[in-house]
């Protein structure tokens, strides 16, 4: 993607990715929590620490299917499936 090239004027714009696409080792900051079909689930994601502005690190993924993933966020380890994790936009650091 052009935007991620550091040279252009737009280069400072962060490249937005979805949490559910990341592999272990990825770190960054959560930029947006999109509303899921089930609104209370979005609330619960946030109450468990997946909130805008928070730093995260993908630490593990389950064997074989690489799903669910384990994310370190707000001082705790949270396991969730990639499907739900895809409602969370992040910027890698």
């Amino acid at each position: 993607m052009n935007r991620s090239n550091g040279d252009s004027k737009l280069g400072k714009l962060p490249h937005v990715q979805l949490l559910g696409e990341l592999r272990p080792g990825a770190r960054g900051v959560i930029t947006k929590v999109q509303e899921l079909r089930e609104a209370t689930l979005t609330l619960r994601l946030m109450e468990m620490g997946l909130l805008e502005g928070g730093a995260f690190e993908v630490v593990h993924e389950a064997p074989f299917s690489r799903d669910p993933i384990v994310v370190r966020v707000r001082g705790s380890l949270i396991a969730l499936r990639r499907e739900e994790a895809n409602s969370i936009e992040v910027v890698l650091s």
Partner: protein
Amino acid sequence: MITQNTDSVPKTSSDPLSIALAGNPNCGKTALFNALTGGKQKVGNYPGVTVERKEGALLTRSGQKISLLDLPGTYSLDARTPDERVTRDVILGAVPDERLPQVLVAVADATNLERNLGLVLELKALGRPIVLALNMMDLARARGMEIDLSTLARELGIRVVPIVAVTREGLPVLMDAVENTLSRGQMEWVTATDSAWRTPDASEVRARFAEVDRILRLAVTRKPGPTLWTDRIDRLVLHPIAGTLFLFFVLALMFQAIFAWAGPPADAIEAGVASFGEWVGSGLTDGALRSLLVDGVISGVGSVLVFLPQILFLFLFILVLEDSGYMARAAVLMDKVMGKVGLHGRAFIPLLSSYACAIPGIMATRTIDNKRDRLTTILIAPLTTCSARLPVYTLLVAAFIPNRDLGFGLGLQGVVMFGLYVAGLLLALMVGYVLKRTAFKGQKAPLLLELPTYKLPSIRSVTIGLIERSKTFVRRAGTVILSLSVLLWFLASYPKQEDGSHSIHSSYAGQIGHALEPFIRPLGYDWRIGVALIPGFAAREVMVSALSTVYAIELSEGTPSSSEEPLLSEEQQEQKEVEALGKALAGSWSLATALSLLMWYIIAPQCISTLAVVRRETNSWRWPLVVLIYLTSLAYFASWLTYRFAVFMGWG
């Protein structure tokens, strides 16, 4: 310290202060509850989580009686599971017959305030008397964390007491703070049930956590360092290959414990029951009373108590795995496998528990927040091979399967036994697969779970847990099984013939068996099996003693006249009797009948307690009826198929 205004605190001993503990899962709430109440708890529960009402009593330093309620852990009042709903409703005073707690004790893990304080702020917003217990202060200190407690209390606007629940540090101070909070606040809140709580929207949750961040910036000068060893253990336990192998190792160890280590204590209980029966029998004259006590009550209850060691071993494993933090990891590892049949990773724990007994398994489904997933798990849990099937399997396999050596240390009987276990599991998964694609079709329920920091299981909480489990189990043995044994004894012993003798043929049980015969004839069963099936419907394990009654072999030697072979120990005697029953069965049944009966035992819902617990957990008669009907029809069909196939193979 503020001197207590004793006027406003109820002092009569009949009126204890009601206090409730609320907090995030894994914040050490149950450890605090155990430390405060010790053995003085009223619980009735099974493993998995703290679900049922747990109440305890204690006295403060000033002599005030306190009644303490341990509420299920939750991340917010916005409940997603039945447990969380209980927590919310108790706190809001919306549970009938439940006192509104006079003081809330919010429990927070000091090493994880970033998340724990979210719930604290939500609770505080209710405007009721509240104290914050900052737990695990020792760990916070050890990880280099510095908390300014007075700033924290000022910014939160509530009292904050640092504690270490496991070492009881700070607990008296906490209780003083509770009393003082109430005396300052008078009693006016106690009737305030119209609390201003409603489901928050996303922006309110964001604002709540922004406030948490603001407070922590002021009150915490150094954040806690990382827990290195949790990361290190997880690198092994969640490793794609090593983690899977470790899970299998844990499961193998558990089954080893249930089937091998539980053997000696089970034998000891068996011998104890037998000699107790003999002792009781020798003190009574021959007659109906002795027959009732020895053949009915003692042998009936004893046949169930024998399972206590197995059940305790299973619960020991589950409690330790749960308490150490491993269970959540197992659910993550199993999520995809369970997902293949449409089940949730969390269904793994209930299904595993069902291998000891479907009752704790069904109760453990309360951790599954999706109703369809929960019902599916409840409906298939009775298909896993619970320990009550074991004696029946043992008897039939020993009688009908030749003990051939297959090499590699494997015997044919052992392999068949294992096959019976696998068959139950496969059937459970198949039924789950079908249910999730028909009756319980719908969106896949999300998996969202916290992996707690590993810790050494607390001996105290594991012991308390085990005592609770054994109490519940023994109570069941003392009620359901006892009444069934007496009923069975009566049905098999009466009516007496005119000359005083009696035979099983003409007894009530025999008459029922004969009446049943036309229905079970297609499965290869005769009236005698019919007699044994009836009590077996109430509790599987009764089948063995029922069969022995029917085949007129005294399994439980209680009569003093049975001293023909005094050189045999109780154990050998017992062994001989089971062998004798096996021989009798092998002599009168065909292989086809035995296979058909094994199939029946894999499937049929022969356990009144299971149906009762399904009724209680689903709060309707519909689901226990569904379980009864679907499993009975499935069992009938599968046994018929097995019988026809076996006859076709020439085993009839």
